[in-house]
Each structure stands twice: as C-alpha cells, then as structure tokens.
C-alpha cells in the first residue's frame, strides 16, 4: 500500500433490525466511506453476546450504498394505482413533498381528526414488531402531538406471530414473550420455537453455551429447522397439534406420577390451584368480601385466599357457605355450595388427554411423549434452591417454549395455557432455570417489568383488560381493527393498536361486520419499514385495497410492493446515516437478558446519501408545517425520544416555543439518559455518546425472575383455572348479542376456564371445502420458518444477504420430503406449483429428509415483484396463498401461517 494518509475511524452504533436486538457494532469508516462492520468489543463486558452482531448487520454497508435506494423525495404522477400501473414517480424537492403532505394533514386538522365512523383520519403502519421505532427518530413525538392515529393497519406482526403468547403471557406472568432461563436451564421442550434462527445474537450465544454445558433441547416441530438441527432430539409433530402433545405431558404428570413429584407448595401458595370452584364454574366467594375461598387444612374450614396463616388444600371437594358470582356481577348461587379445588378440576379435565389419545392426533408415539414428560419432571429439581444475588430462589431448570404458528391462531391459547400449566406443576414459572417472561408491552411501565406487577382482583395481578361491562363496553371502537371492542386482553396502551386483530382493518374495508361502524379508508396513511403487500396474508387482495387509499406517504428505502401504491416517497436517512438514542439491556424480547441496562447511540457513520434526511428533521418539519411544534417538543420532553427529559436527576427539557435541530434534540435526550444511567452523577451530551457509543449500569440478575416480586406483593399466578377470562368472555358475549352481533360467537368459545382440545387442523382443512375444493386433494400442510439472513431490515434487497443465505438449504424454493417428492415424480430443483383451490404459486423443489411427508416449507416471505434484487428470486410465499379470514381468527384476534395445499411439477418455462 502506498503511504497516503488515510483517516480511519470506528464508529459505534446499534443494530435493531429485528426484535432480538438491540446489539452493538462498530462501523469502520475510511476517508468517509463505510467499509466494514465489526463487533463492538468495548461492549463485550455488558452485552450478553460478546458485543457482536448477527449476519444481517453485515449487510448494513451494502444497505447504505445500494444503488437502488430512493434518494430524493418523489411524487406519483400516474393517478391510477394498481400492481400493473407504473406509479410514474418523479423526483421533487423536499419543500414540495412537505407541501403536499402538510396540505393534506392540515385539511384533516381543519375538518376533524376522526371521521363519521369515529375512526382517525390519519393512519400509520410501522410493522417490524416495534423495531422501526428505533429508527424513526422523533416521529413518535409528531404522532403524539397529532392526536388520534390509527396504527392498526397491520403488516403481519403479532397476528401472524406470537400473538396469543403476547397477550396471555403478559396476563399470566408479565411475559410479553416467554423464554427459558437458558443459562441455567437443563431441559427444554421447544414446540416450534426456531430460536437459533430468530433469537439473534443473545439467543444463539446463550443456547450454544447451554448445549456445551449439557442442556437437552427437544425440538417438537414438523420440519428439521436450524433449531431442530442443533437440538438433542427432533420430534416431527403434525402441524397445529402441539396442544394435544402438551396436554399429554400434563396428563402424565397428573395421572401417572405420585403427586409428591410435583411442586405442591408452589401450586398451593403461588397459584390459584386451591381456589374452590362452584357448580357454575366460577369461584366460590366469601359473601361479605367476595374474595375467593380455599379450604384450610388447619381449621378445616373455608377461608379467603389471602388469610394469614393459611394452609391451602390443593385437592378435593368441599361444601362451603358461599356465593358464586358470574358475569356482570350476577349472583349465580348463594348458600351451602359444593366446590372442588381448581386443581381437582384440572386433574379431571386432563384425564382423557393421555399420550395414547394424543398420539393419533399429533403423530408422535405415546412412548415418546411419556418419556419426554418423565424427563421433564426428572430434570425439574423440585424442592431445590439456588442463590441469585444473595437471594435464595427455587431452582427449576426445565422450560417449555413455543414458536410462531404454535402460539398464535386457533390453538394458541391452548398451547400457551398448557405450557404455562406445565411450568406451574413443577414450580418452574418465573424462577431460575425455568420458564420466564421478558418484558411487558401492554401493562405499564414498559421499561420496568417488575413495577407493572400490581395487585388486582382475587389475589392476582392487575391487568388492564378492556371493559366488558355494560356501562363501559362500546361497539364504537377507537380504531378500525376494533381491538378495544373485541379483544379484552389487548388492553389499551400505546402498543395495543398493533396488538389487536390488525387484519380486521383490511378485512372490514369492504364489509364491516354488523355492529361496528363502517370501516373507512384513512385520508392520510404513513408507512415506514413495513411491506404488508409482502408480509401479510392474501397479499394480492391487500395490494388492491392499498390502491384505494387516497393519500399514502411512504418512507422509502427502495421501491417495494407497498410503496408502489404510494403518492409520496420520502427518503429517510438509513441505519448508518441517522441519529437516535435507544434503551438497551435489562430483559427484553427473545433472549435479550442482560446484567446491565442503559442506552446506546445510533449515529451517522457516514454522511447521508443523496437527498435523504434524518427522520428527526422530517418529524420536526412536519410538526412545524402543521402548527404542532409546541406539542411536538412537549412530547419529546415527556419522553417520546425514549427518556423523559425532566426527571429526578435533572431537567433537560427543550423549549417548546422554539425549533430544535436534530443534534440539539438528541443532545438533550442523551443528557437525560446519562443522568438516569449514572443516577445523577453525569449528564453527558451527544459528543460523549458519539465517542463512547453506550453507557450502562448494573441490572440485578434477580430481576430476571418475577416470583420474588409476586411473593413480595402477596400475589398468585392466575393459573390453572381461567375464571376471570371465562367471565370476561361471557360478558363480551352478552354485550355483542345485545347489539345483535353474532359473528364473533366461535371466538367466544375460546373463553374457557380449562380449555378443551379442539380439532385445530380441521379448521384449516375446512377452508378447502369452503373455497371449492376437496380436502383430500390438498393433502399438504404448507408452513413457513424464519430466515435469520433475510428477516427484517429490507434484507431481501441486500446482495450479501442473498449470497450467504443461499448456503442454507431451503432458501431457494419449497422444502419437500424426499419420499413425498418421489411419489409425485418431483426431483430436487424441479419447477413446481403449489396451489389452493383459488390460487397457485410457482417455485423450485428442495428435496430433503428433514421434514414430514405431509408438510411443505417455504422459508421467509418472498414473492416480490417490485423490490430490486428480491423480485428476481423466483421464490414463492405462503402469503400469496393464505386467506385473510374471520373464520381463522381466534379470540385474541390472531391467525396463523398455515395453509392446506397441493403440489405438483410445473412445466418449465411457464411464468
């Protein structure tokens, strides 16, 4: 090399392209050009993944310099919108772009923020399961300043992925996502959780260490995923039958083993197992206090659940003087009433669900299920303790995790319930080694999980259920997906919109079901980091609906299948070009469990390209042009930038009457964050953060586990008996029927105190008949699985991601079992067609052994037709075949990525 002086820097930043982050990296910049991504080893001491980033972050250099980037604002010149219509985007100035947008927004402000149906006139979709927030600067402050926004037009997050777990998990143990305590777990049953592909750096890091330590993971999944490959045992279960499998495990624990093997103290004292259930299925309650009753050993009487010195009886039936209260406060019975404990009810309920019963349903040999159940309890270490930060806690190194499609859609409730019950039976819920939660998104405060544990009714945690009583329930929802009206468990916090049935917004556009206000098109729709025309169901129809939106503003990275329908494209400065501070650490999502918490800075490693602008500047400009600057700044002061600017450690508030630069805003946020992290010792500004990249303080290990807090607050886990949910469901049913709304009746059946097994696979088979086919002609289950290389972040457009992903089998077609392929005359690489009665897609066959003969697998979500590079992949998507339907929606408002299809060889050369 010639000896020229070359300026080399290593710029620290974070990557939060997917929910497994944020992770930390450095970008090597040589003479102003980003050249390499490397781990941030300075963070190795605090990051539970050694300061490293996964493969996707290595695509960020290409992402910055991608010649396909949209680098100027653009406006549509072709008024016709459609897949086959060329939008005719022409470059315009930022001024013109802002003019166009502000004009529309100001009309809305003048006419009213909500329309005749009561829905917000402005909508915004961000997808990405919340991660786009870590890239959109202070845009949330603009949205907060605006007023009501409909953020419920989904792109697939939630309803296709983990939805039931989000809601039930948080309800039962503040577990928006449920995780094993991997560093201590010794036996893990994973029903379809593809953690090695989806768990990111921390997930892969922890599980690799666990394997090396000797943890046994049993992967129960229809295909041999990356995770199955890295597991000790693969159980090829029939799709959508995991509930039967889990029920069989519970049956073994309850009916085939001595009761003493279970964690009886945990069940008696920390759950609602001893609560007495009355003749109508509701708790027996003390007449005066209305508190649930339990049978006390010492006094041989019924006493309320929180009596001092109580010695709960776990099993049995007793007659007690009590009342039984049903929905709407109706007293269903009063007097000497027969009651049996919830645990006794559970035992009876599970009696029929033996391994022999389950094996014909889930295609797993009874002996295998029996062996797994016994291994589970053998590893549970019931009665043992461990020291965590000087505190003695139960040590239960066994856990059960569920993956996407198992924990959402019909059967999701049953699986989530069964998994959590399994944990309680051996006392392995929210304790070291066991099944634990990560964070909260529906209860508050979101940044401090333990503080969200507050006392609610009947000795359980409070949960902000949407009201179902006559006085407060309303058929007039606040947004189009009607979560507040239809899904009590979705709560009503900032995340609730995106956790409602986000396909309803789309579905009801053409036919709003009886009782809900007519679903209207929003007048302005913002879209960022999301591509529903690829990632949701029934993508063709979705595109057609998008074409009808009157004014769509897309923050565009490249042209894609969604912004094809936009009116204005805005180029935001991308990952390595923009500025934002974000919380890291504590416990968050997937396997992100830290012993530290704090903040990390994402800063420009290079100058912005073309006309791209930092999102914060875009937000500030929009606020100015809509006369909302003061509210916008006030929202930032309140915490829309991630930290409230005024707190116990200082006041770094910005003057709401002035306009602030991007750097000034984040400097203030940085100071507030610095003060929080250092407990007031420092208030470092932006320049310090740019140099250091991150700052943290210790996060106590004991805060990984909820049990101590539950004990401290005198609360029990609301398991196994779902009396509250049963009541809420009954009330919801009454409200709906009072308004002549009967289209949710199937979903109402999910509100059971002890869920029964239903033939879940049959629900998807039924769709075949309903769409004009015969079930036996469509014998395959089509599933999807995660691709670590492509997920999120526009990675389908990165050449490097495609190149490396091609090393992993399955990325270039549909995976089919070798024998099944042989029977159909399909060889590896053959052109094939996958079809439902209504639609078909084409691709290539990837013939493998590691998949059930009745199952097909399409990794990721492709079928692109506009995104550069991806549109040449020639790989189809389940989303093009899947319908969006009420019938396939469960009570929490979710569906699942599973379709019954047929497959055959296609003629080569056909498009």
């Amino acid at each position, binding site marked *: 090399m010639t000896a020229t002086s070359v300026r080399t820097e290593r710029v620290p930043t974070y990557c939060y392209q997917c929910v497994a982050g944020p992770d930390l990296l450095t970008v090597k910049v*040589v*003479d102003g*050009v*980003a*050249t*390499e*991504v*490397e*781990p941030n*080893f300075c963070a190795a001491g605090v990051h539970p*993944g*050694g300061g*490293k*980033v*996964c*493969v996707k972050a*290595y*695509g960020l*250099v*290409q992402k910055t*310099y*991608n*010649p*396909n980037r949209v680098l100027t604002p653009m406006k549509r010149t072709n008024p016709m919108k459609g897949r086959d219509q060329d939008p005719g985007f022409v470059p315009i100035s930022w001024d013109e772009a802002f003019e166009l947008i502000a004009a529309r927004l100001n009309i809305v402000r003048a006419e009213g923020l909500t329309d005749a149906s009561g829905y917000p006139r402005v909508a915004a979709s961000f997808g990405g399961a919340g991660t786009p927030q870590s890239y959109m600067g202070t845009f949330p402050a603009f949205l907060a300043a605006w007023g009501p926004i409909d953020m419920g037009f989904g792109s697939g997050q939630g309803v296709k992925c983990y939805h039931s777990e989000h809601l039930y998990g948080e309800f039962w143990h503040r577990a928006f996502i449920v995780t094993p305590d991997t560093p201590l777990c010794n036996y893990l049953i994973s029903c379809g959780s593809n953690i*090695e*592909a989806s768990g990111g*750096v921390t997930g*892969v*890091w922890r*599980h*690799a*260490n666990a*394997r*090396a330590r000797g943890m046994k993971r049993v992967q129960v999944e229809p295909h*041999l995923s*990356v995770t*199955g*490959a*890295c597991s000790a045992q*693969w159980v*090829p279960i029939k799709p959508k039958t995991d509930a039967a499998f889990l029920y069989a495990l519970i049956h073994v624990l309850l009916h085939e083993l001595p009761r003493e093997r279970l964690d009886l103290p945990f069940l008696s004292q920390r759950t609602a197992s001893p609560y007495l259930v009355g003749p109508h299925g509701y708790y027996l309650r003390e007449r005066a206090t209305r508190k649930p009753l339990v049978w006390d050993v010492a006094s041989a009487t019924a006493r309320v659940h929180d009596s001092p010195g109580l010695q709960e009886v776990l099993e049995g039936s007793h007659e007690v003087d009590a009342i039984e209260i049903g929905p709407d406060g109706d007293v269903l019975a009063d007097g000497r009433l027969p009651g049996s404990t919830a645990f006794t009810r559970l035992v009876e309920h599970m009696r029929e669900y033996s391994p022999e019963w389950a094996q014909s349903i889930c295609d797993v040999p009874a002996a295998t299920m029996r062996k797994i159940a016994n291994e589970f309890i053998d590893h549970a270490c019931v009665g043992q303790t461990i020291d965590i930060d000087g505190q003695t806690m139960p040590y239960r190194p066994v856990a059960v995790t569920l993956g996407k499609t198992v924990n959402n859609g019909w059967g999701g409730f049953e699986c989530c319930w069964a998994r959590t019950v399994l944990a309680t039976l051996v006392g392995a819920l929210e304790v070291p080694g066991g099944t634990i939660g990560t964070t909260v998104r529906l209860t508050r405060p979101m940044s401090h999980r333990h503080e969200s544990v507050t006392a609610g009714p009947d000795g359980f945690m409070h949960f902000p259920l949407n009201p179902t009583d006559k006085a407060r329930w309303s058929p007039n929802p606040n947004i189009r997906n009607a979560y507040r009206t239809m899904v009590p468990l979705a709560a009503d916090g900032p995340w609730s919109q995106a956790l409602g049935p986000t396909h309803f917004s789309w579905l009801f556009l053409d036919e709003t079901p009886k009782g809900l206000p007519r679903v209207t098109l929003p007048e302005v729709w913002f879209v960022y980091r999301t591509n529903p025309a690829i990632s949701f169901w029934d993508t063709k129809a979705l595109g057609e609906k998008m074409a009808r939106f009157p004014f769509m503003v897309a923050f565009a990275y490249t042209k894609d299948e969604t912004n094809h329908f936009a009116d204005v494209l805005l180029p935001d400065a991308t990952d390595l070009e923009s500025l934002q501070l974000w919380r890291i650490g504590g416990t968050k999502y997937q396997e992100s469990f830290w012993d530290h918490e704090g903040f990390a800075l994402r800063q420009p490693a290079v100058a912005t390209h073309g006309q791209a602008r930092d999102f914060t500047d875009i937000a500030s400009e929009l606020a100015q042009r809509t006369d909302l600057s003061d509210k916008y700044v006030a929202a930032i002061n309140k915490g829309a930038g991630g930290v409230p600017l005024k707190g116990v450690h200082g006041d770094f508030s910005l003057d709401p009457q002035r306009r602030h630069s991007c750097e000034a805003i984040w400097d203030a946020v940085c100071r507030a964050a610095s003060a929080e992290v250092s407990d007031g010792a420092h208030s470092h500004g932006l320049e310090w953060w740019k140099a250091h990249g991150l700052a943290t303080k210790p996060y106590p290990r004991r805060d990984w586990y909820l049990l101590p807090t539950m004990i401290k607050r005198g609360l029990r886990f609301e398991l196994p008996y779902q009396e509250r949910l049963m009541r809420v469901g009954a009330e919801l049913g009454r409200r709906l029927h009072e308004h002549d709304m009967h289209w949710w009746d199937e979903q109402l059946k999910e509100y059971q105190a002890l869920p029964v097994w239903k033939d879940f696979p049959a629900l998807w088979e039924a769709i075949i008949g309903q769409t004009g086919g015969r079930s036996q002609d469509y014998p395959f289950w089509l599933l999807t699985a995660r691709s*670590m*290389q492509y997920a999120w972040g526009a990675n389908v457009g990165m*050449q*490097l991601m495609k*190149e*490396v*992903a091609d*090393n*992993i*089998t399955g990325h270039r077609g549909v995976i089919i*079992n*070798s*024998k099944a392929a042989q029977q159909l005359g399909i060889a590896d690489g053959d052109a094939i067609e996958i079809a439902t009665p209504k639609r078909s897609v084409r691709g290539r066959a990837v013939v493998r*052994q*590691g*998949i*059930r*003969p009745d199952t097909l697998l399409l990794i990721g979500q492709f079928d692109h037709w506009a995104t550069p*590079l991806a549109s040449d992949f020639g790989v189809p998507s389940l989303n093009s075949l899947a319908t969006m339907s009420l019938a396939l929606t469960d009570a929490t408002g979710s569906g699942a990525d599973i379709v019954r299809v047929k497959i055959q060889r296609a003629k080569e050369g056909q498009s």
Partner: protein
Amino acid sequence: MTRWAMVADLRRCVGCQTCTASCRHANATPPGVQWRRVIDMEFGEYPDVQRAFVPVGCQHCTDPPCLTVCPTTATKQRADGIVTIDYDLCIGCAYCAVACPYQARYKAPRATFAYGKATAPETARHDEASIAVATKCTFCVDRIDSGLAQGLVPGVDPEATPACVNACISQALAFGDADDPASNVSRLLASHQHFRMHEELGTGPGFHYLWDVADDDAGVEKVS
C-alpha cells in the same frame, strides 16, 4: 514453534453465516467469493434425520496439495503454518483450485460488484491484483502479523484475530497456536473429541472440528 490453527465447535455452529459475511467484509472479496463459508449437511432418513452446519475454508494444511502443484511458487507456506498466495506471481491457472480437497480456492476472472457497478466502498477496497488469480482464506494473516508486532495474542485479542472468529455469535470458532499447550485451541482440543476433514488424504489440516466433550466411553454415534 508456532502453528496457527482454527477450531470449529460443530456443537455450537448454527449456520448463521455471520462468519461468512464478516470474512467478505474484512477481506473485501468480490460477490460469490467466500473464503469462509458454512455449509448445511443433512444425514439419515426421515424421521431419523440429523443436520449439521460446518464452517469450511482453507485448512492451512501441513502438507498442502496446492503448494505441491503450484507451477509458479505463488503458493507458499510460512513456518507458522499459514499457506499464502503471492498474487503477483500467480498466473491464474487454477491448478491449485482442483488440487484442493477442501474446495477452498477461488479465482474471480474479472472484477464484479454487488449491484453491477462498483459502489464507493467497493471502489475504495478493490484490489486489481487479486483478480484472475487464486485467492483463499489467509487466516487474516495481516491482522495476525500486525497484532503480534503490537504484542497482542492472536485468538485472544480481537485486533490480532481472524475476522470470522471475532464475528462468530455462537463462539463456535477459536484460533490460536496449536503448538502451545496452554493456548485456547490446545486446551479445546485436549478437552474435546475432534477430527479433521478428509483426514485420510494425509493433508494434515490446521483446522479442527470439535464434536463432543472428551470421554473414553464408546457408545457415541458415528456416521455410517
């Protein structure tokens, strides 16, 4: 003596290709040239199937077939075991590529770029000398040498360690001096059961694969 060696723990590798991507970054190789890559292998018949992810690349053999066949002496081997290629001597005959039993060598016939035309980083890092000649994993020899010069330990200090090892998110890859019994790689080899790829060919690879903890018990599975 020093003998640099790589250890890949097959129990840990999840096939994520982070090492593949980091190598592309560190060495600015052209599209498709993966000096380090991870392959996806399947074994058995349904339902008794297993699947493994195997990092591969130049094995820096003790007796490298590439060195024997190279007509120009462009391929050489250092005393510390690293097999090098002098791009300026290489005539691009690709004899070494067919001589290598590990498919580790690449010859990019012309300069190509990710999106057709070169982007700024590709322009900045393009090395014309590496076009139309044999190229392969170098164990990031520049990082090793500059690290040693600064008193750093390759395989321990990130600046002196190959990029793939630095990047690996499952800690599957380790690098160090196999001739030093106290080194990380030596300790890993001593405490685990391991093998080398295509051992029967007698190439003496400097790349070891761990598959289990060290144990004298028989009764562990072998692939038939």
